[in-house]
């Protein structure tokens, strides 16, 4: 799957999640959008996103801790581009393993 397709699916999942949220941002969701500072994601939202992405891409047991932890500590921000890169890597590894 091309990265552009992955990005489109990730942004679509985020839009589905946040459509009823009262967000200030008028710029919409793009690659530089921050989940925590801009979309006001809380930890339960990270879980929901993880589940949604596994369903969207037909994967199970993805190591999402690689997204929200770095060098053994929790990150302060997760950008959409980082989610896309993460999914691209996981899908690539899944293809190679098959």
């Amino acid at each position: 799957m091309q990265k552009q397709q992955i990005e489109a699916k990730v942004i679509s999942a985020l839009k589905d999640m946040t459509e009823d949220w009262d967000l200030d941002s008028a710029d919409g969701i793009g690659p530089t959008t921050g989940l925590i500072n801009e979309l006001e994601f809380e930890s339960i939202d990270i879980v929901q996103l993880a589940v949604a992405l596994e369903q969207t891409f037909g994967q199970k047991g993805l190591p999402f801790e690689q997204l929200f932890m770095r060098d053994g500590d929790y990150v302060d921000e997760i950008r959409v581009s980082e989610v896309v890169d993460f999914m691209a890597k996981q899908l690539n590894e899944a293809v190679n393993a098959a």
Partner: protein
Amino acid sequence: MPRLVIDRDTSIHYQCLGQGEDLVLIHGLGANLAFWYMGIARRLARQYRVIMYDLRGHGRSSMPAAGYALPDMAGDLAVLLTHLEAERAHIVGHSFGARVGLYFTMAYPDRVKTLTTADTQLSCLQEQVRLGDWPHWQTWKRQLEAQGYHRLPPENERINFQMLVHFNQLTQGFAHGALNKTARTPSLKHRDMGNRGARRWDRLMQTTSAQAELRDENQITVDRIRQIDVPTLALFGEYSHCLASCEQLNRFIRPCKVKILPEVGHFLPAIKPRLFMHSLHHFLQQSHAGPRQVRIRPQAQPSGIERRIGERRDLARHSIAYPLTDRDGDLVLFDRRKPLYDPGTISHQ
């Protein structure tokens, strides 16, 4: 998001990770299953089928107008386990979640393999500690004031779940009852509430019977605690205000192991996840040992812990004497600088 419908007004959001023996993780008040999912759940999932769920009124579970008493909460878990075809499970609860786990064990003993109660305060075992009487309050208060937090609860107030949630909101810069933007972003490490989580909590407190029902612990009595006969772990933080309950659980439950994690307070599963998981895993492995028990002798203590050993601390008329040992005589202060498991110190019975 998997959701189990309990009745017309109640549905429970849950997540399962991994395969193996069933292990249930129950969060505390004001939290949700992310408390575990973002921490130890994925590691535990390497060996267990980890079952996490949002208590009713929390996370993505529904918020019925009533039904927040312990029998209702335990009933939800029973239905969930039946739905997942989990006949018996290891039950792990933190704070209020530990109360749910404890009551579940009393009400459904045949469904419990082991019970872990992590840092919970039980009114039948201890009086609620006044904030000013909590030994670590003055240190924490100085830290909060140094960071600019001055709207602190009065020191004669008793530490209860509402105060703990208030502290969570306080450090978010959230003015109670207002809908201001948070002064800083929610910390994933601390599983902080953001604006939406805080609004949801307010709605739970103000529009349902939860506030009154959650306070009611009449169903947990010393007599019922004494009847618990599954392997039990009392896992508490050294700075916790709940240590008196820990001591009493150790006294009344046979068999009970006790582990007190050093230099951490009430939120030990989130703040020291590796240590928490290590202690839990060790207990679960020991509970499998069967008739031939493996006993881990305590290792030599470093000077930091030696200072604490022998101290006698008073917590609002309830004393905790160190060293604290469980029924097998194992020292329970965990030496953070050394692994719990050292092959050189194992003795076999």
